[in-house]
């Protein structure tokens, strides 16, 4: 029998060497992959790494102030004290109260009706009887009940909702939760925040203001920033907070920059207001993840000079961890405070202007707001001393109350409308001095010409009468100066027909009627016509049109500011100044102020004889027995003026009614003028009666204020 040969294969070391070779091959594969990842593709991974862990925060700068010419603050940055919750610090251990509150709010969101338990109830329940069920809703109505059943079905379909038993929450229109089930659950940041807010609310006695959804949104997208649970808290609340809540973790007082306007309504149109800034546009390559919103000027000077006032926001690079909590600050560039403006406005004169404008005269409806505007200029340099529009609004309320903003939209008297600049009105008879100047410049002899103001007067087939016909007479034969004093229309008609439209148009253009006043383009009515005369009509279509325009009606319109510039130019003898609002400015609070120079737009060549005649006529308007504005007269001051009453038709309901815009332009003192005023009241009786007394009051206040007149005993 052949013995089976032991076939022991020679255990050659080849297998071992092969295995070692394979091992080393494996190691070098790892090494080459490592090279590829770490060296060749490094930057790609670094970018991914930065994207997921570095966040940029924008920090707003303190906004600059606006002062009046004497340094009185007109717009100020004030701290708005808020109670802030730092959600990052709320990584507290599990809390049954927090879980209960979170569940309660989630149910509340689903049903849309507040539950029947308070925070106090929940705390007591969990303290005393934590194992008993807690009744959240005692009696739901059928709609709520239906909604709940539907929502709960969807909610509990995917997973079990702890604290809610799937079978028994649906009993007799009640919702019951089992707090014992919530005991062991770890709490979310939202739940902790909710508990903290309830706790603070209970301690300081102020109701909760943020909604659960706000909290969740904040934690989701803005976690490293403070959540402002209460804004604008008063000192009492702050004291209570300091007294009772300082032991709580995760809450602090946060100071948010806010804007206030001490003058309130008086300068609302001119200065404007601020609102929360828009989410900022992403600069190229620089993504901003967390934007602590600053404020941004939205109207008036706040908007025009926003760039100067708002300063430069700072930036902060923050590294966050995987849950969005701040790990460390990588880099901070502090914000640069905004610059300041000092205006030419004198807040006293501004106040006088408002008071004068809004004081009601006899026979005016006390229930309707006075609609009008008043501009006071310094004729010697174009400084705007006052610029008032009425009715006005309170920017301080406007910024805070959405309801107020909405109510303003419905207000028929257009409270936010800046009448002094944007308002375009037919200037009426206040245009006559200008027309007269134009004619006298072309024909110096027109001084001698007399025209007869008859009772009946026709231009072509159309009757065009002097306003005096209402009193049953004409003015008779009048010259230029008398025509201005009487405000005689017929004289102007005849004069216009005799010399044509061109001289009137040319001088109006030189005075800036129909042109930009030179304030700032975004603050003025845009000019639509593309002709070199701007909004000023280039030609008269026919004689009626010509006659209408000669008395400042028809197609001629001007803003109160433009009429103030006109009268200032007449007062100073032909220098048309750009209205200057900003006296000085600086780009940062550490800098010196820089002057904003006065600037004459042009010198208008007017013969002094013509000027003398027109000024004389305007003097007579106030001081002559038969002048139209005798109500302006003040003992001890010589005043020149011109009234205007521009008729227009307006629809009131279905009726078309005739209404009158009443005007006065004026300057004073007559010999060395310091003030040039244009005042307008919509829908008045006549220039002399409606505006005259107001103008007198304004002058009286101003001259008492600057010492020309002794202060009246009052």
């Amino acid at each position, binding site marked *: 029998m052949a013995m089976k040969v032991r076939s022991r294969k020679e255990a050659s070391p080849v297998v071992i060497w092969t295995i070692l070779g394979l091992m080393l091959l494996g190691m070098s594969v790892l090494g080459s992959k490592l090279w590829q990842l770490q*060296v060749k593709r*490094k930057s790609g991974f670094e970018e991914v790494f930065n994207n997921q862990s570095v966040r940029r925060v924008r920090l707003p700068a303190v906004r600059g102030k606006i002062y009046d010419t004497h340094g009185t603050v007109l717009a100020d940055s004030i701290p708005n004290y808020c109670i802030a919750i730092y959600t990052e610090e709320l990584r507290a251990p599990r809390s049954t109260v927090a879980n209960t509150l979170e569940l309660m709010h989630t149910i509340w969101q689903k049903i849309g009706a507040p539950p029947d338990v308070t925070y106090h109830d929940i705390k007591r329940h969990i303290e005393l009887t934590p194992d008993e069920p807690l009744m959240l809703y005692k009696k739901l109505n059928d709609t709520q009940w239906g909604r709940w059943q539907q929502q709960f079905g969807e909610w509990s379909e995917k997973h079990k909702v702890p604290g809610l038993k799937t079978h028994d929450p649906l009993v007799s229109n009640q919702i019951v939760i089992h707090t014992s089930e919530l005991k062991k659950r770890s709490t979310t940041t939202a739940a902790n925040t909710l508990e903290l807010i309830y706790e603070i609310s209970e301690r300081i006695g102020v109701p909760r203001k943020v909604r659960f959804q706000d909290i969740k949104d904040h934690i989701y997208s803005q976690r490293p920033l403070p959540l402002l649970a209460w804004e604008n808290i008063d000192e009492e609340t702050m004291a209570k907070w300091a007294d009772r809540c300082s032991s709580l973790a995760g809450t602090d007082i946060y100071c948010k920059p806010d804007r206030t306007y001490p003058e309130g309504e008086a300068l609302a149109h001119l200065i404007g207001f601020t609102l929360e800034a828009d989410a900022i546009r992403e600069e190229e390559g620089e993504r901003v993840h967390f934007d602590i919103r600053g404020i941004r000027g939205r109207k008036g000077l706040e908007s025009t000079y926003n760039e100067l006032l708002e300063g430069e926001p700072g930036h902060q690079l923050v590294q966050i961890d995987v849950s969005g909590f701040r790990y460390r600050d990588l880099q901070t560039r502090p914000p640069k405070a905004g610059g300041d403006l000092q205006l030419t406005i004198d807040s006293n004169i501004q106040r006088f202007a408002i008071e004068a404008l809004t004081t009601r005269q006899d026979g005016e409806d006390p229930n309707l707001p006075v609609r009008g505007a008043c501009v006071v200029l310094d004729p010697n340099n174009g400084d705007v001393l006052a610029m008032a529009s009425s009715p006005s609004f309170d920017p301080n309320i406007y910024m805070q109350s959405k309801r107020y903003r909405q109510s303003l939209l419905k207000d028929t008297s257009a409270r936010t409308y800046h009448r002094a600049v944007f308002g375009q009105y037919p200037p009426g008879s206040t245009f006559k001095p200008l027309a007269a100047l134009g004619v006298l410049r072309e024909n110096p002899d027109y001084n001698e010409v007399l025209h007869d103001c008859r009772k009946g007067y026709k231009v072509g087939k159309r009757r065009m009468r002097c306003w005096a016909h209402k009193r049953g007479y004409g003015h008779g034969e009048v010259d230029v100066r008398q025509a201005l004093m009487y405000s005689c229309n017929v004289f102007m008609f005849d004069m216009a027909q005799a010399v044509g439209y061109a001289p009137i148009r040319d001088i109006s253009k030189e005075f800036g009627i129909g042109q930009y006043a030179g304030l700032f383009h975004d603050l003025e009515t845009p000019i639509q016509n593309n002709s070199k005369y701007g909004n000023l009509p280039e030609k008269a279509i026919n004689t009626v049109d010509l006659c209408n325009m000669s008395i400042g009606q028809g197609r001629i319109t001007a803003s109160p500011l433009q009429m103030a510039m006109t009268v200032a130019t007449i007062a100073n003898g032909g220098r048309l100044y750009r209205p200057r609002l900003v006296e000085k400015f600086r780009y940062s609070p550490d800098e010196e102020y820089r002057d904003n120079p006065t600037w004459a737009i042009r010198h208008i060549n007017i013969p002094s004889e013509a000027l003398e005649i027109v000024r004389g006529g305007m003097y007579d308007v106030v001081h002559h027995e038969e002048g139209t504005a005798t109500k302006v007269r003040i003992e001890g001051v010589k005043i020149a003026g011109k009234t205007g009453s521009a008729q227009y038709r307006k629809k009131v309901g279905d009726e078309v009614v005739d209404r009158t815009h009443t005007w006065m332009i004026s300057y004073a003192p007559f010999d060395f003028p310091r003030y040039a005023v244009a005042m307008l009241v919509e829908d008045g009786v006549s220039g002399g009666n409606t505006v005259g007394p107001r103008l007198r009051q304004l002058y009286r206040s101003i001259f008492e204020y600057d010492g020309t007149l002794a202060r009246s005993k009052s």
Partner: protein
Amino acid sequence: MNGIQFKRLDWAMLGTIFILIILSAAFIYSAQFKSEEAVGTNWIKQLIFAGIGFGAYTTIVWFDYKRVAQFSWWIYGGVVFLLLLVFLFPKVNGAHRWIPLPGFTLQPSELGKIAVAISLSAFLSIPGRDMDEWRTFFSCSAIAGLPWLLIAAEPDLSTSLTLVPISLSIMLYAGVQRRLLLIGIASVVLCGAAACLWIKYEKPPEGLPAAKGQILPNMPILRDYQKDRIRVFVRDDHDVAGAGWNKLQSQIAVGSGGLHGKGYLKGTQNILGFLPRDVAPTDFIFCVISEETGFMGGVFMLILYAILLGRCTWASLRSHDEFGRLMTLGIGVMLFCHVFVNIAMTIGLLPITGLPLPLMSYGGSFMVSTMIALGLVQSVYLRRRIR
């Protein structure tokens, strides 16, 4: 022949082990480091485990490894008993893998691998064993198969899979049905590749949008979480917020390390928690190392492991007898599997598995069992053939 002759010790291997242990403590400290105030204590525990492991190491080196061959069936029986015992304890993270003991938890599957290497080597090195007999082949399969089944049932698929190359390399070297084994290996590799392709193009699980070409029906056998790992591996964009998160974050960590790394204790991926804190000191320790020390550090680690593996093979070549040769080879392959699979998954070459990095990853029973294995190698080398 018990006792230690210091002159004959493999000092290169011992030195490498010491360096690795020190690095391990340092990087476990770093993986837990969040700030000066928040420092974990796991690195101390790791040093304690290393101390216990070194005790076991010294003991094993002291004893002649031939004793191990004599007791191989007892060892095998004990480990199988432990593997059965595991099922009596409640599931942790959905698996019966651990036996809770006071102070630490025992993971018998780690010992299982060594036991298989020992008993297989002992079985095959008995003089007169006929390698061509089918009985030998089936016995070998049974020896490796029983722990394999038990570990796979825990379930711990990745550990059970490392049993395959260990057993295969031992059997191949011994010469058991070489042709069949090679054919088997080739077909398994093919099947694996086919399975990966299938999973790549099968319909995605519910809730995830189907990418282009994902039309094949669901593959049986594998469970969804196992498939998920393969999906993450075969599709770069698979469920980045969920199953793909660890892979992506680990790649970002390694990739952002660059050539020189971010510096010790400055591995932001792990400080900021993008690399999950529970896996950073364990399965993803290599990720922490290569983020903080960069390519240079990573390659240094690879070289250390290459030295370790080279010394194991060298011990195998110089072994005095067949048993020592087979056992050290098996242990070398086991270490290699761990090193390769762990690092490869960290850098995205292989699907994410739970295989720790020998001597580096935090964990008591793995540290001790690795030290036992290395002690066996040292013991074989100490009693080597002298030329």
